[in-house]
């Protein structure tokens, strides 16, 4: 009798791990991320409470679970650029926003990124851009990374452009970029080189100012 009960309990014990896994999966999908309090976010970013409220309402409406994963992000970004293929650039952008590198953007990441882009100092914006370009986060932008990014941007343009994309336009663009940025011609661009080169670039400084008021 005891043996029977024993075998029965053993069986249930064996079954439980798999059921737990299923339960875990269920939990993971339904869990909600809540951002920190409004006050803390206000302290950490450059937004006012009102702006944070408006941002969060929009964010929560789109992502009731409180996180954006990469697929959703790509889908959203693709709707802004229906002419071309925005998935690669969206991927890099996603990684740039996902500072914690866990494959999902929470509201905090979202709002911190926006704070830098919209309300940050020039240096912060340039640093953010540098991190966007630096795909493998090693502190240097090399040619391959730059080519990837530039190709992704040109992909967004789509096929039908004027003038038509002939030859390896992205590559030429990358070469021009390195010409400008790589001061010591060592084949990589460091953060300092990048910041200095950008500050010297008149057109870029003018353009930066235009993006102040995007909110």
């Amino acid at each position, binding site marked *: 009798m005891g043996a029977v009960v024993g075998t029965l309990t053993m069986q249930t014990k064996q079954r439980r791990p798999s059921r737990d896994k299923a339960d875990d999966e269920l939990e993971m999908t339904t869990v909600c991320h809540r951002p920190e309090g409004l006050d803390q976010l206000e302290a950490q970013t450059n937004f006012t409470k*009102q*702006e944070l*409220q*408006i941002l969060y*309402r*929009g*964010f929560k*409406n*789109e992502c009731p679970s409180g996180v954006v994963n990469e697929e959703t992000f790509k889908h*959203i*970004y*693709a*709707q*802004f*650029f*229906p*002419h071309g*293929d925005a998935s690669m650039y969206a991927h890099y*952008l996603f990684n*740039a926003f996902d500072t914690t590198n866990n494959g999902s953007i929470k509201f905090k990441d*979202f709002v911190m*990124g*926006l704070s830098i*882009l*919209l309300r940050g100092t020039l240096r912060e914006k340039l640093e*953010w*851009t540098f991190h*966007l*370009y630096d795909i493998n986060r090693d502190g240097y932008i090399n040619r391959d990374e730059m080519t990837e*990014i*530039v190709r992704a*941007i*040109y992909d*967004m*343009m*789509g*096929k*039908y*452009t*004027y*003038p*038509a*994309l002939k030859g390896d*336009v992205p590559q030429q*663009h990358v070469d*021009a*970029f390195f010409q400008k*940025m790589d001061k010591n011609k060592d084949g990589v661009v460091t953060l300092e080189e*990048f910041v200095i080169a950008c500050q010297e*670039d008149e*057109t*870029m400084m*003018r*353009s*930066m100012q*235009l*993006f102040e*008021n*995007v*909110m």
Partner: protein
Amino acid sequence: MAAGVATWLPFARAAAVGWLPLAKKTMPKPPVDNSSRSDEILYVNVSGVRFQTWKNTLDRYPETLLGSSEKEFFYNEDTQEYFFDRDPEMFRHILNFYRTGKLHYPRNECIQAFDEELAFYGIVPEIIGDCCMEEYRDRKKENQERLAEDTEANEASDAPLPPHSTSRERLWRAFENPHTSTMALVFYYVTGFFIAVSVIANVVETVPCRPPKGSVKDLPCGEKYQLAFFCMDTACVLIFTFEYLMRLFAAPSRCKFMRSVMSVIDVVAIMPYYIGLVMPENEDVSGAFVTLRVFRVFRIFKFSRHSQGLRILGYTLKSCASELGFLLFSLTMAIIIFATVMFYAEKGTKGSTFTSIPASFWYTIVTMTTLGYGDMVPNTIAGKIFGSICSLSGVLVIALPVPVIVSNFSRIYHQNQRADKMRAQQKVRLARIRMAKKGTTNAFLQYKEDRDRDSDSTALCVKNRSAFEHQHHHLLHCLEKTTNHEFTDEMTYSELCMTESVGFRTSRSTSLSSQQGAQNNSTGCCPRRARRRAAMRLANSTVSVSRGSVQELDMLHVKTTSIPPQTRSSLNAQADDLKLNCGEQDFTAAIISIPTPPANTPDESLPPSPAPIPGILRNTRATAYTHDTVKISSL
């Protein structure tokens, strides 16, 4: 999901900072955003039920009543709220649409009431979410069919004949609707009577009558009164032949008539008589002749013209033909299995009636249908066991067809309708997506054209577009500046490829070439700008931007103002004209009108244009400007 797109737009624009180091040119100026950033709560009073929502929520769909300035008409100053004298229950669903981006159809509501509410609030029913779309369409179809049936029933019987119908048409109508005239009714009943007479005659002539004097054997009445029956048969056949010939004469489409089921039945009903007349009284062929007389029983099917019920039954069986066929097949399988088993079970016994497997078929069928004649009975124990299994399974198998036919009738019927609907919807869906994509391209190219021109002159026009559109276009413009390439559409692109490859500037092969006369003259001096102008124009008039990926776009509110082409010299003059005309643009909520050539069917009527080609409003010397409002909502 326009809400989603609108929410993320600031994010996408902020991320455009990432393009700046790569940009070869300066970024364009962003549009001025005058709207206050702070959100406010609006009060909407619908027949006493107060709803509150953020203003932003309602602004998500600017081409609906609540999202546009149209709601100001309903604003009540005293109570500081928007008052609508409509159904509050329905309004709940409408408001949920704004909140969630999905429109649901409440199943307990009348479909017409729902449609009216949607029309009032300026919402296109096509955006009903997938979860409720099928139900909505089914109900709507049902409603329309019912209305159509009612009107048809009213019309069909009482409609007066068109005044100049030929006698042929009148005859056909008399045949199809016997109630229209007295003559037709009389004819209808006469044929019915003769069908009955014929059928009864066929039946009665086989009944044994008292034998004539001198003979002992019973004689079937047919042989006793041979002449009488022959006369009756002749009369019936004459009537039927006459009727058939009349129908054939009156039929609007003779081939179609001859192929129809009823005419085949008619022919089969009268053929035996004529064949019998023609055939000699030969003993050899009399066997075949007797078989032919069997076909006379098909005259009973002629009653289906007189009976609606028979027709429905026939249609049911026809529509369930595949199901019945499968049933028959499975029955045959079962019969073969059991017959084989019974045969081998009973093989050994002496005097067994199961002489062969085909002989066992009869036993199996009789047992499975629980008839049990008892002419073949198993004797061995194994035979009895299998026999009982056979009869039990027979009960199950035979009991299947009845509910199958009943349920299949509605299922198969609806299924067919749905498959066709799906196919049509899919085509419409793809077409709509293509149109929306093209609309975006057009809107953006239009925006660029405005940009190129003197920015002051377009200030008035500019404010007629939504803030969202402005910002989106600005974003696309930034991308162009970054890469130093411009967006065009497929037609222009292939066009330019052609011209470049050929090596000289040809006049366009499209139908616009006739109107580009002035254009062509000026290409010599400013080739690049001329090309861009051409690109613009073609963009506004071309059909499709075909993209491989079927990306689903949200509701894009895209307004294009079609600018007629201008000659180089009159550019300045035209700028003034444009300023004047901007004020005349008027809104219509939720219409879909696309300036496309006839390849795509335009949904709404376009404003009349002087150009010969519908939808392409180009005139080199146009004095009247027409504005197209393109609103595209796609699922």
